[in-house]
């Protein structure tokens, strides 16, 4: 069993593949397949390239014919629709344009009129999504897959590793994690919940055997005006920053679900986050604005896993 960590940059973040494989060659071929898949998704859904699907979709805004999308994009749009519905409108693929009103480097609040003007072009309920055709009826509307693609990519890459025979490993795309499988001896991966104040420090370490972990944070870009902190997470219904926790990390069977859950928690504000996380019932950790850490995570002592073969055989011991 050979263990290797492959670090690289993708999707605007530092990424790492922690992989166990039989030999160096297998690890390398696995890593290059993973990076190819990440690059594919990045170039397809980024909004920073003119030839990406996202740009094509955004250019079609105002065109009643819309764009016919492939199965993968259709799946993501269906998922985004579900998330929009379940979150009461907080999770919204079209909310990206609101960032134009908020210039965090200027240190100035935008005018209400500017925000209201942008709100005219925001709202998934305005979008006509009838599989396989997406129509953005209002010119200037935009879809932004940024809130989905990194987590989706983590899940896809982890599944890709599994389909190629890897059974132990971890995919880390800028803090969005998907587990291929626990360590060969059955130990879980130890994941640190980052301190928003000091990125190098971990407030807590949690054990992850399988599934995905995603973190939504509001600590990167913000403005401090008259003692009030304005974060960069904007409520798509009002156009203004939400006042909620500093970060929420969620563990789910898939990184995609973990990401959506944590994003919706952040957008729900302080009390909304509690209610949302309680209703979803997934393990999570949140860092409040005052720096306090609250975890709802079944943290256990470093427990061992039996060798997998013991599981089915052990239920039928031999009586020789």
């Amino acid at each position, binding site marked *: 069993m050979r263990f290797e960590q492959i670090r690289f940059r993708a999707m605007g973040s530092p990424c790492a593949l922690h992989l166990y494989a039989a030999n160096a060659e297998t690890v390398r071929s696995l890593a290059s397949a993973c990076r190819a898949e990440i690059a594919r998704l990045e170039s397809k859904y980024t909004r920073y390239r003119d030839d990406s699907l996202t740009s094509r979709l955004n250019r079609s805004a105002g065109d009643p014919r819309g764009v016919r999308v492939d199965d993968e994009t259709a799946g993501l749009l269906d998922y985004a629709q579900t998330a929009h519905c379940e979150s009461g409108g907080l999770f919204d693929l079209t909310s990206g344009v609101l960032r134009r009103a908020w210039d965090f480097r200027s240190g100035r609040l935008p005018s209400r009129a500017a925000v209201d003007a942008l709100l005219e072009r925001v709202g998934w309920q305005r979008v006509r999504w009838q599989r396989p055709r997406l129509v953005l009826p209002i010119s200037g509307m935009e879809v932004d897959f940024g809130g989905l693609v990194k987590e989706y990519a983590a899940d896809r890459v982890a599944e890709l590793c599994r389909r190629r025979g890897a059974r132990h490993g971890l995919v880390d795309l800028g803090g969005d994690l998907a587990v291929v499988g626990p360590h060969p001896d059955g130990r*879980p991966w130890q994941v640190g919940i980052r301190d928003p104040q000091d990125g190098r420090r971990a407030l807590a370490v949690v054990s992850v055997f*399988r599934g995905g972990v995603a973190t939504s944070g509001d600590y990167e870009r913000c403005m401090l005006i008259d003692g009030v902190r304005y974060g960069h997470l904007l409520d798509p219904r009002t156009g203004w920053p939400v006042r909620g926790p500093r970060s929420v990390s969620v563990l789910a069977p898939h990184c995609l679900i973990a990401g959506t859950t944590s994003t919706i928690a952040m957008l729900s504000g302080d009390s909304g986050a509690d209610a949302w996380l309680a209703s979803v019932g997934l393990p999570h950790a949140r860092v409040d604005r005052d720096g306090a850490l609250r975890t709802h995570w079944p943290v256990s002592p470093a427990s*061992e896993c*039996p060798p997998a073969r*013991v599981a089915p055989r*052990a239920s039928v*011991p*031999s*009586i*020789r």
Partner: protein
Amino acid sequence: MSRLAALLLLLGLAATSLPGCASVRPWEREILSRRDMAWEPDALEAQRRNHIYFSKEAALAGGGGGGGGCGCN
């Protein structure tokens, strides 16, 4: 068959109606996957013990599984 056996059989059948009473999610299985939570954490020891008791007592160990006879009983 004695009443004890009938009672056990009944318990066994009742156990099959248990599905749905507990739903431990996949991410809550750290304790269940501990080595000492396995039915037989140490296969070698279980085999040896079962074989020794089998050669000194009349009973079958139960638990199913293959493996046939030997000259010891």
